[in-house]
Structures are given as structure tokens and as C-alpha cells.
């Protein structure tokens, strides 16, 4: 299985942590604040500028408003509360309320999640969002971790991962031959990169910049936001749209917390999450555009790729990884949804 604490950043970015808590200022017009406000702490591994952060903030405002201030969502960006894998344990134990974690990490709790992290499993971002937030498809899967103390509430778009390197634009597997590309540490990812022509090299995200600079690696693979935010564009200027992975990020919540909410509050939360996910998907496009401009200003060169060659190349991996009845069923449903 693939997974890794970092889908994106081991080391974190631009945060808030601003101590002055102005609890009672914003939504007090409709305040019958005899209810005690419950603070829901949310761990996040990316900076405040990230679309998911902004969407969660919007969710927080709406949720507080519609529950008359019963809940206050507090975000902790930049891995302040720990790397993604560690924050899952904090959610499981109800130490914190929620965390946003890479799909690959959920495989470590239930292997059926693997289906949604396979290369080229989705045709587009819309396809991905439609499938993942369709209760008929993912409803059982998302509840499957309840026994482990957490529920998956929904899936955010987590970007499309593309290959970047310091040698040349990539168009075919041959272009990747011999290039060491940083991947998330998992056997699946190593195999995938091998099928794509390169040499997958697991390494903690924090060391990657220096490793590319000195030549230990030739590149990495990630979405445009990370590429620009981590400044990898400075050391690996060729960004090629191989579009090989589209790993979702899940909002997980403490089961104890969620099951303790009134049904009405649960319903409001779900509704507002749907809205937040829509907002995030919209913000994502804007974020990517801005990131691309920043990267180009820093000298990055982007090129489109005929992905069908790579799709064919990794096909054997998909056969190997979709194992078991549930997984096969899920995979069938995902592909069916693509046809519509």
C-alpha cells in the first residue's frame, strides 16, 4: 500500500497561531450565548493560504453561525499539532476534533481506500469529486473506520500530481529513464515510478530541496501548489503534466465527538461541509493558477504530456492493487461513473 505522512509537506508552512482569541466578536448578533461554546481543533499540514484551509475557515464560520455559537472551529496549520499520520491518532483518541489527511494514509487503516489513490483512476477533478462524495459509493467505506475511533466526513480535492525534474521536459517514459524522482514512501509508488520509466526514491519532504540541488535526486512529483510553495521550482525547473495521481484529502473527525453531537448539528455540519468542499474545488483552480504564475516567474517551464502512454504503462499496477471483492466493486463503480 502507499502512504506517507506527507502527501505534501513534512515541514509545514505559513501559519496563524495568533494568540489573541476574540471568541465573542463575530457572530454575536444572533447570540443567545447561554450555550457553552465547544472549541473544535483541526490539524492541518499546509499553510493558511491553502484552499483547504480557507474552505475549513468558511465551514467554521457557517457552522458557528447556524449552531448559535455552540461550536467554534480552530485551525492549526503548518503541522503545528504534528505530521498528518500523527494527527490521525489524536483524532482517534478525541484529543483533537478533526484533521485533514492524505488518502494514502487511510490505506493503513483500511486497504480498500487504495482504490481511490491509484494512478489514473479518475478522468478529471470533477469525476474524482463526484465519486468520492457520492454516498452510494463511499458511504460504507467512510464509516468503516468508526471502530478505530474516527469517521471520514468527506473528501477534498488534493490536486493532481505531476512529475518535475532538473533535466528536461518529460513526454515519454524514456525521458524519465534513470532520473531519480522523489516519491512518497511506499511500494506502490516505487512500482508506479518504475513503470513510468523513472527511479522512485522515497525521502522525507524536508530534505528534497537540498537533495535535488546537490544532485542526489533529479526531481519529485507533486501538485503545482506544493511545487511553488516549497520552492522546488528553484532547483527543478521542468514541470510536466503527467497527471499520474489524484490523491484526495479526507476530513476525518473523532467518532466520539461526532456521535455526541445532536442530530440537528450533525446535519448542519454535513451540509456545510458539502458547501466547503464546493468552495475548495473552486479555490483550488485559482490557487493552481497563482502557483503556476509564481513558478513561471521563478523560471519554471510547464509542458503538457500525452498521458495515454503513461496510462498504459501503469495499467499492470492497477490490476495488481485492486484486490478483494469490496475493492473490485469500488473500482468498478469509479470507472462506471467516469463513463457517465
Amino acid at each position, binding site marked *: *500500500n*502507499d*502512504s*506517507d*505522512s506527507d502527501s505534501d509537506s513534512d515541514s509545514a508552512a505559513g501559519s496563524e497561531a495568533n494568540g489573541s482569541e476574540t471568541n465573542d466578536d463575530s457572530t454575536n448578533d444572533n447570540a443567545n450565548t447561554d450555550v457553552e461554546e465547544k472549541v473544535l481543533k483541526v490539524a492541518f499540514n499546509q499553510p493558511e493560504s491553502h484552499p483547504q484551509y480557507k474552505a475549513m475557515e468558511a465551514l467554521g464560520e457557517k457552522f458557528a453561525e447556524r449552531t448559535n455559537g455552540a461550536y467554534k472551529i480552530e485551525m492549526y496549520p503548518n503541522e503545528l499539532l504534528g505530521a498528518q*499520520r500523527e494527527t*490521525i*491518532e489524536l483524532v*482517534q*483518541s478525541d484529543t483533537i476534533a478533526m484533521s485533514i489527511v492524505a488518502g*494514502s494514509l487511510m*490505506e*493503513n*487503516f483500511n486497504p480498500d481506500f487504495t482504490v481511490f489513490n491509484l494512478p489514473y483512476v479518475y478522468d478529471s477533478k470533477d469525476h474524482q469529486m463526484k465519486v468520492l462524495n457520492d454516498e452510494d459509493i463511499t458511504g460504507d467505506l467512510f464509516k468503516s473506520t468508526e471502530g*478505530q*475511533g474516527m469517521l471520514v466526513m468527506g473528501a477534498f480535492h488534493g490536486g493532481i500530481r505531476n512529475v518535475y525534474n532538473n533535466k528536461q521536459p518529460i513526454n515519454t517514459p524514456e525521458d524519465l529513464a*534513470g532520473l*531519480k524522482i522523489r516519491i*512518497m*514512501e*511506499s*511500494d506502490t509508488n*516505487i512500482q508506479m515510478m518504475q513503470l513510468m520509466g523513472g*527511479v*522512485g*526514491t*522515497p*525521502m*522525507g519532504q524536508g530534505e528534497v530541496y537540498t537533495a535535488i540541488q546537490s544532485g*542526489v535526486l533529479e526531481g519529485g512529483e507533486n501538485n503545482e501548489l506544493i511545487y511553488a510553495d516549497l520552492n522546488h521550482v528553484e532547483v527543478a525547473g521542468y514541470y510536466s503534466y503527467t497527471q499520474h495521481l489524484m490523491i484526495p484529502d479526507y476530513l476525518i473527525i473523532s467518532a466520539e465527538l461526532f456521535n455526541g453531537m445532536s442530530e440537528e448539528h450533525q446535519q448542519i455540519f454535513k451540509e456545510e461541509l458539502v458547501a466547503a468542499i464546493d468552495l475548495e474545488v473552486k479555490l483550488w483552480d485559482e490557487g493552481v493558477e497563482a502557483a503556476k504564475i509564481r513558478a513561471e516567474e521563478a523560471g519554471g517551464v510547464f509542458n503538457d504530456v500525452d498521458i495515454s502512454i503513461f496510462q498504459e504503462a501503469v495499467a499492470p499496477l492497477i490490476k495488481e492493487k485492486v484486490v478483494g471483492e469490496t475493492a473490485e466493486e469500488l473500482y468498478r463503480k469509479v470507472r462506471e461513473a467516469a463513463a457517465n
Partner: protein
Amino acid sequence: MNFIKQSLDKVLGIFCVALLGFLVILVTWQVFTRFVLNNPSVISEELAKIVFVWLVLFGSAYVFGERGHMAIEFLKDKLPLKIKTMVEIFIEVVIFGFAGFVLVWGGIIATNLTMTQQSAALQVPIGYLYSALPISGVLILFYCLYNIVEIIKKMKSVEA
């Protein structure tokens, strides 16, 4: 108690020496697989990190047995013998409490919680990896008891 302490020291010492030696070989191997074989190991980095955590936890237990952890001792050293002994016993009790609560109790909770979570590269339950926390904690508990006995013995021998 002395016999258990000495045997434990020996076993722990050998274990830590083996872990550190293995760590050097493992990281060298990681360079070799990547640079020479051009076939990077999937598990070497995760394995190295885990071996390192174990080395530090069990190494720490070993050092608690020697009362060798760094402390600021100049005030304590100025105290009269009786009070100094009491402070030293108090410190061992504090360590006992820390190891008992955080490493053993917290460690057991953490180990149980993560038995159903697989590690990314090694594909073993994280709980196995976390088990070093409560185990090293229990060793520290033993060393604290031993140290308290020794501290009292020493004071009595000085008084006599």
C-alpha cells in the same frame, strides 16, 4: 536486585550496540542501493528511523540506570548530605512517575490504539513500533527503584 541490574545492563548494552551498528550499515546500504544499484530501497528510511527511536529509548533507559542523564546539579551538590539524599530520592520518584505515567501508561494506550494501523513502508502495525515506549518505560521504573535503594545504602554507609 544487583544481579538483575547487572544482567539487564548487559542485555540492554548489547541490544543498543547492535542497534547502532545496524543503523550505520543500514544507512550506508541506503546510499549503495540508490547510487550504485540505482534501485532505492523502499524500507530503509522508515526502518532507520524506527531503529533510531528504539536506540534512543532503550539507550535512555540504560543511562537512567547509570543516573547519567544531564542535569543542573550545582545547587544540589551544595546541600547537606541528608537533604541531598532526600532530594535525590525525590528526583528518582519524579523520574519513576514520568516513566510510569508517560512511557508506560501513555505508551500502552498508544500501542493499543495503533495496533490496527499499518506503517507505510514496513507494513507492520504501528503498535509494534510504539511498543518500545512502554517496554523502555518499565525498564526505567526498575532502574529508579534500584537507584533509590542504592542512594539509601550510600547514605547509610557514609553515616556509619
